[in-house]
């Protein structure tokens, strides 16, 4: 039968042609091809370390954390030998300054504005904004929250959430450094700070003077940020989906946050919109 020989022949020729021509490596992987900025290394950018539960240790000697664990696993899945960690203020990452890193893992939420200067991979966490307070402080409803002094990270999505959703009586204090933001709550400069729930969970695990009072109902995605126009988005997204599917992310969450991402969402009460 002619077709029985012709079609496989055409397929073989076409496949060989495609795999060897213009597309280059692009055809060699069903889940995207990763081209590191430096051979054999995954260069990852994050906020100044440590970030409790997410990046432990120092930039030169990272010791663990959810996002650090993800970076190591990602490098392994992408066939790279080591992870090179770099740090920069969050606001620079949010403005698209990745400084030659392959990607940023910095609890960053994709927004339309950030999408103009960055590319984002598949979200790996969907987290509700949570209210971090001193132990013993209660913030059950919006009315109570409005009378409190908020602290938020500059250029974070929490800035607009606090201003538009909570609408506090006094403007929030803006911090460039998240550790100072946490410190402001501890020393009473601020009454409450807003973080993603998993981040807040890690902060509370680290410091028993703090507690999570409540969370907002709307969840925000957190994703890896890549340079605008990067050809590595597909490969990074595929690897992150695989990490989610095989339970790697949940395992890291339990190891570094002390709870799975789903459990932490379920344990915290919602901030009531009326009394």
């Amino acid at each position, binding site marked *: 039968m002619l*077709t029985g020989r012709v*079609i496989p022949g055409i397929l073989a020729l076409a*496949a*060989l042609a495609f795999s060897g021509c213009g597309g280059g490596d692009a*055809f060699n992987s069903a889940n995207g091809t990763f081209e590191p900025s430096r051979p054999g290394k995954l260069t990852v950018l994050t906020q100044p370390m440590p970030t409790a539960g997410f990046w432990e240790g120092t930039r030169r000697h990272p010791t663990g954390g959810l996002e650090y664990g993800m970076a190591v696993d990602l490098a392994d899945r992408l066939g790279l030998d080591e992870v090179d960690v770099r740090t920069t203020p969050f606001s620079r990452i949010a403005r698209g300054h990745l400084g030659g890193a392959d990607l940023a893992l910095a609890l960053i939420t994709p927004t339309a504005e950030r999408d103009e200067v960055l590319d984002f991979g598949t979200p790996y966490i969907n987290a509700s904004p949570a209210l971090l307070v001193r132990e013993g402080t209660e913030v059950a409803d919006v009315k109570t929250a409005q009378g409190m002094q908020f602290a938020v990270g500059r250029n974070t999505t929490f800035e607009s959430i606090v201003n538009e959703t909570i609408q506090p009586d006094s403007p929030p204090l803006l911090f460039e450094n998240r550790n100072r933001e946490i410190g402001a709550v501890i020393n009473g400069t601020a009454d409450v700070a807003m973080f993603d729930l998993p981040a807040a969970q890690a902060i509370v695990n680290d410091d028993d003077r703090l507690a999570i009072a409540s969370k907002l109902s709307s969840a925000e995605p957190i994703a890896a940020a890549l340079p605008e126009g990067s050809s590595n988005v597909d490969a990074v997204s595929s690897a992150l989906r*695989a990490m989610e599917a095989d339970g790697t992310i949940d395992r890291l969450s339990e190891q570094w946050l002390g709870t799975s991402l789903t459990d932490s969402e379920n344990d915290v009460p919602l901030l009531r919109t009326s009394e």
Partner: protein
Amino acid sequence: MNVAAITLHAPEGSAWEFLVLFLVVILGPPLVQKIKIPGLIGLLLGGFLIGPNGLGLLPEGSETIPELGKLGLLYLMFVAGVELDLGLLRRHRNSAISFGVLTFAFPMAFGTGVGLMLGWETPAALLLGSLLASHTLLLYPLVRGAGLANDPVVASVVGATVLTDTIALVILAVIAGTESGTGSTADVALELVLGFIALGFVCFYALPVLARRAFRALGTERTVRFAIAIAAFLLAAVVGETFGIEGIVGAFFAGLGLNRLVPNEGPLMHRIDFFGGAMFIPVFLISVGILLDPSVMFQFETLGLAALFVLACLGGKFIAAQLTRLVMGATGPQAGLAFALSAPQAAATLAATDVGFSIGLFGESVVNAVLVVILVSVLVATLVADREKGRVKRPTPEKKALGERVLVAVSDFEGAPLGLRLARAVAAREAGVVDVVLLLDTDTTGHERQAALDRLSGLCRRLGIDTDPSVRASVHGAQTTVLAANSLESSLVLAVDSGADEAWAETLAVSSPAPVAIVRGTVDRPLGEVHAVALDPRVTAAGTVAAELVAAVSPDDDDEAGQHLESHGSLQPGEVGVAGVSNWQKLSELNPAEETGIVLIPDDLLPTEVPEPSATEAHGTLAAMG
């Protein structure tokens, strides 16, 4: 009043997302159907339009539609399993298996080959091959509408779908399990084997038994029956996932397991189709469309991949279809039709691609390339089907099996339980449908009719029969029954009437499109073993029908059913006789004894010269109630 002080909020939240979703469901399919493209493409394109890569009407990171889409995917695979015609697979077993192997093997080999030649990892290449090897019977309604459902080649393709989809999903389960499972390969393999054993037990043994009991015990309301079906496939999905097998495999197996309990023409299947068509399946298709990204789709890489996939898929399907000319002696147009039916890629392809994407085995380029394959395969198949369906000779209609569509015409409430039990037993064998018509005199009031209908509906529900009885008020019960049988295209009429006289029976038997059996008796207990009774040695045609009827209510392994002859006098309490009769007088003479029932089949086809009955001809039979 200061209008300027009014603050309008940008639409957001679940209500907005559902509104957008339903606008796509309403507008997407009809718009593309205007240019003769199947509606599912409209839903995929609609998903793209409302998604972040299109008009951005859905917010980035929205979980509502993707989460609902996951349920839609399970529903889609359940429907794919439950609506497959296993009867066709049984009747055309050899040719269906032959075609199933061919139409799976070629695209599987070509697809895997393409993946390997492109340098993909083996699991990704195998998954590509398997997803291109499955097919969805999108164009079957078109072919069935052309009167070709009974064409042997068409029937074989339909039967083969069970095979191709099952193998494709098993391969998907193995690949997804090994890729996302933890532990050694041997551990994962053992887990999968145990999973398939558990899934097989749950779907093909436990679920049918539980569902049958639940339909009788709990299924008194339509919503409950529907909820039982939903719970069944969710249970199977959970069992699968417990063992690391993708939920869609469980949902598909649950569909196959419940296939015989949910007849394609029955009310429950209509409800499953209704909710699936209106909500669950569109949501899944739209959630897939959201992944469609023109900036990825129109890249050289994606279009190159799509071209190779199309060639591998349609090339493989074409070769398999052409081989039907050698294997099954098909004509050219029949082979064309086999190609048109087996080429469309939709349900299993989308499901496997979705899973491949979610476990990180496939990237966006592959997903977008597969969406191109779906579009091209559906368009090419539609064109071929349109051309070939007029060139295939229409087959002579096959004689319907007795149980395909049983009409129970009830004039006598006392005999209704017996008639309904018989109907249920006959229909169950063929996964058929039971229609129930209540015949009342014209002088009954509206209130009386409603009360009688409610009583009959309650009886049907008590017996677990999924049907919506209707009431017909007429002075001509026989003609009304004939009209109902004609309009419903019944395969058997069970007339429950203790007072049927000669004229009544004659009208019914002569004009009915299907064999008629008159049911008398007040027995109300489960049907049991089979005896036989000779009532009238001159009967031939009716005797054959009587034997078929007895065989239909007998256990599968009873080869002698309907062949033994007993005497009428041997009827014991609890037993029911089924017999052909030639003399109309017998209808009024033969009344069942206390606690027995009798089913009489009038013979309107008696030849002038009545042949001597042979030993193997069943002239009268007896069904026992035990």
